[in-house]
């Protein structure tokens, strides 16, 4: 998960602190063995008009400031840090830049399926051998990209001294540990069969491997091979990324901290030299996004929140296009299942039935969000609501469930059981548009049931800390998603990010089934069971899935974007006119 720094007036909170930024879009994998890998559709074909909704500009007259910029397009971002090294970045704003600088083996289509990136993937029928056939990409210095350049990526990732945000432990590549421990000079399971063929062997079947392996990017052996020494990759880590030789559409030429990152077109880019010679990612203060677009300060602004106000402004401003696509995330209320109050499923169901989620998201996001009842985004090919309960707002049902669980109102109207009163604390950050509405709603609804809920406000890292140490009762959070459906680290017993204390061995088994699936159908069957069971067991209260809004100027043509394949992967066709 990538994350974004946002240091603003009190409100880290917001979607920002929880909706920490987006994950890199390129981690996706193709169907496993059996079914033929989808034929090489390039990124631009993988996005269609139905992947989102366009509120089009009605006029071509753009502010003078923008019109005179004939060879430059400016993209607004917030909170860039100096972390442009693809293996060391977890800042969402910088991820946009990185996606323009380097390309990965695989990409995703609009449903999260794996499609060709710089290579075509074939998986053996036993699910253990992944063969990537590279196409003829070139680095920005004209050198052809070879399989060895991809092996460099793994040599950094698996190195003992690697301390970046990617976790190398999740894909079971043959010989990985031996390389990390220095027992072997090379990674036994990763070989370059020839210049254009990369072969990776796994120790066991893992359906998520295709997503993670597919996100690898090549590191030029010619330029940087000498910096990648086994046991010491500090040379590569400290490398200045200015003029970094990558195989993406653009090359980073300068970075002014707190101001802008400037890139120029890579003439050797596989899909053709980009038509726009210069690209600039400019810092735009949070809250000024639409203004920056309206004054022509920027041409693209990806961080516009889909509030009814913003959508209205976008509609009335004639030269702004608004592209609305489903966000790869979901908002939920984390519940500490180890708290005796919440350990009874009936109680959790009751608490969820008492929240009017539809009204909540309607008031915060208008028509641009919908209620969610399981842990997957609705656009994923794996998503299903089959056999799932909808937990529609029903305060009477909530009351009766609590009664069944043994809770009764005492003489003062407080819900009690065995002399203990039902009272708990909701931890939140300030100025979050969702909790600003949610918390009063919950306090009110629960009060009618006799439950006393109080709210405490802390800053972002403190809230995360409480969540991680499980010293919370309830917090509002969001998980970022990517094409890799394996989120067992959240929901399985003892999962690395299981901060609810939830455990159901049946779900653990279903996840395992999903991971060892050798075909798309098998994966779908397993994850359907996972979603059904999680929907039933309520390890947390799913609230919504919302939309993202990307605003772009009327002067920009050929803008394409989808949730799994962001616009920054499709810059080469942009034109201004």
């Amino acid at each position, binding site marked *: *998960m*990538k*994350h974004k*720094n*946002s*240091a*603003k*007036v009190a409100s*880290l909170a917001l979607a920002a602190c*929880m909706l*920490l930024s987006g994950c890199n879009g390129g981690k996706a994998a193709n169907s496993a063995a059996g079914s033929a890998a989808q034929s090489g559709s390039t990124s631009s074909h993988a996005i269609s008009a139905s992947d989102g909704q366009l509120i089009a500009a009605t006029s071509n007259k753009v502010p003078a400031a923008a019109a005179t*910029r004939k060879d*430059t397009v*400016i993209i607004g971002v917030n*909170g860039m*840090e*100096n*972390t442009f090294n693809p293996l*060391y970045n*977890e800042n969402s704003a910088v991820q946009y830049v990185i996606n323009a600088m380097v390309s990965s083996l695989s990409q995703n289509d609009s449903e999260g399926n794996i499609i060709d990136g710089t290579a075509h993937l074939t998986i053996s029928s036993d699910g253990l051998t992944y063969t990537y056939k590279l196409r003829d990409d070139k680095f920005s210095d004209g050198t052809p990209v070879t399989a060895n350049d991809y092996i460099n990526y793994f040599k950094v990732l698996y190195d003992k001294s690697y*301390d970046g*945000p990617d*976790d190398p*432990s*999740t894909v079971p590549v043959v010989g990985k540990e031996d390389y990390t421990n220095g027992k072997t000079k090379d990674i036994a399971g990763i070989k370059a069969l020839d210049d254009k063929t990369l072969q990776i062997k796994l120790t066991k079947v893992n359906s998520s491997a295709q997503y993670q392996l597919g996100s690898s990017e090549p590191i030029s052996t010619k330029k940087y091979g000498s910096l990648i020494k086994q046991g010491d990759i500090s040379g590569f880590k400290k490398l200045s990324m200015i003029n970094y030789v990558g195989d993406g559409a653009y090359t980073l030429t300068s970075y*002014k*901290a*707190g*101001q*802008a990152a*400037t890139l120029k077109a890579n003439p050797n880019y596989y899909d053709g030299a980009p038509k726009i010679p*210069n690209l*600039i990612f*400019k*810092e*735009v*203060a949070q809250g*000024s996004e639409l*203004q*920056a677009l*309206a*004054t022509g*300060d920027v041409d693209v602004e990806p961080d516009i929140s889909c509030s009814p106000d913003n959508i209205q402004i976008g509609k009335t401003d004639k030269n702004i296009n608004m592209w609305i696509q489903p966000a790869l995330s979901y908002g939920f209320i984390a519940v500490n299942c180890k708290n005796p109050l919440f350990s009874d499923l009936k109680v959790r169901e009751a608490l969820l039935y008492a929240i009017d989620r539809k009204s909540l998201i309607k008031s915060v996001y208008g028509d641009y969000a919908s209620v969610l009842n399981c842990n997957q985004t609705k656009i994923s090919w794996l998503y299903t609501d089959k056999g799932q309960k909808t937990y529609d707002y029903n305060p009477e049902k909530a009351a009766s469930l609590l009664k069944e669980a043994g809770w009764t109102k005492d003489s003062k109207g407080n819900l009690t059981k065995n002399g203990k009163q039902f009272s708990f604390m909701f931890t939140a950050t300030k100025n979050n548009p969702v909790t600003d509405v949610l918390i009063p709603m919950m306090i009110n609804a629960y009060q009618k049931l006799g439950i006393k809920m109080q709210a405490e406000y802390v*800053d*972002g*890292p*403190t809230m*995360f*800390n*409480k*969540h*991680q140490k499980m010293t919370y009762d309830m917090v509002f*959070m969001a*998980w*970022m998603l990517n094409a890799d459906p394996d989120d067992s*680290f959240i929901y399985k017993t003892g999962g*690395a*990010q299981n901060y609810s204390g939830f455990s159901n061995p049946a779900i653990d088994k279903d996840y395992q089934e999903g991971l060892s699936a050798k075909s798309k159908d098998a994966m779908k069957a397993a994850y359907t069971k996972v979603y059904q069971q999680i929907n039933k067991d309520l390890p947390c209260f799913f609230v919504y899935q919302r939309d993202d809004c990307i605003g772009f100027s009327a002067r920009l043509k050929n803008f394409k974007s989808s949730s799994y394949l962001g616009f920054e992967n499709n810059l080469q066709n942009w034109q201004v006119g």
Partner: protein
Amino acid sequence: MFGDYDMRQYITRRLLLMIPILIGVSIIVFFLIASIPGDAIDAKFAQSHLTPQRIAQMKAMLGLNQPVWKRYFTWAGNAIQGNFGFSTQYNLPVSTVIHTFIWNSFILALISFILEMAIAIPVGVYSATKVHSAFDIIFTIIAFAGISLPSFFLALLLQKGFSVDLGWMPLDGMQTIGVTMTPVQRFADVCQHMVLPVICLTMEGIGGTMRYVRTSMLEVVHQDYIRTARSKGLPERIVIYKHALRNAAIPIVTFIGGALPGLFSGALITETVFGWPGIGKIFLASIDQRDYMFMMGYVMLLALLVMLGNLLSDVLYSVVDPRIRLK
């Protein structure tokens, strides 16, 4: 004056005294910061997939698993040698990060300060000489308006009025992005971007300074020696600007010394609204991200500046007032 042995001794003694104070400040701040829940790794990787083992590994690499007192001595040992560590946010030495941003805040603050003084002093003096006149009342109102208006409100107002609506000024940032310019053009470009933030900062600060000058002058103007000067037949101009002002200048001059740390601390809200890449935002972000090294480095810098500012005030005080002999 500085040739004066007493003065040199005084300054040297004050400088030496700063050392134990700085040490004390560093201890208090370090332990305070360490007591905030969560650390840099928690802040960075809160929502990542990393396993607890990996997180522990990364904390160990930063030395975050060691007891606080040990971490303090590690920091102090490096700090004495001028190494303030690496910022976890930026992956750059703390001194580099500070250096990148602090001068942006400084020029903004310096220009605003000079403007403030240039306007507040004459206005304050004139107000004092013409107490309760129309001039005095109008500027008193302006002063209180400036003091009471919240800075973000003023900033947004200026931005909406002059940039969005009238289009006279750039929206935000320190310079126009995406256009190559000659150094002269670039200088003019930055100046143009400075206009609104400087107006905002000056307006905020001017009220207080004006009142301060006015009060100080009023006090002096009623003194006996001023009456003596007048009765000697000196022109009013000489009476006010030579005799009264020089005495009223004493508190004003010490006020200047106290403003020194303010020049380097960044105006968080104004900088944020105008997208000015200053140090205020960076500092706030570092608290949020638990960037301990940066926080320590910056706080120590500010502490040093506060003490230097006090020293400057005291020295200037003795310069302006010959009656004072520093001990």
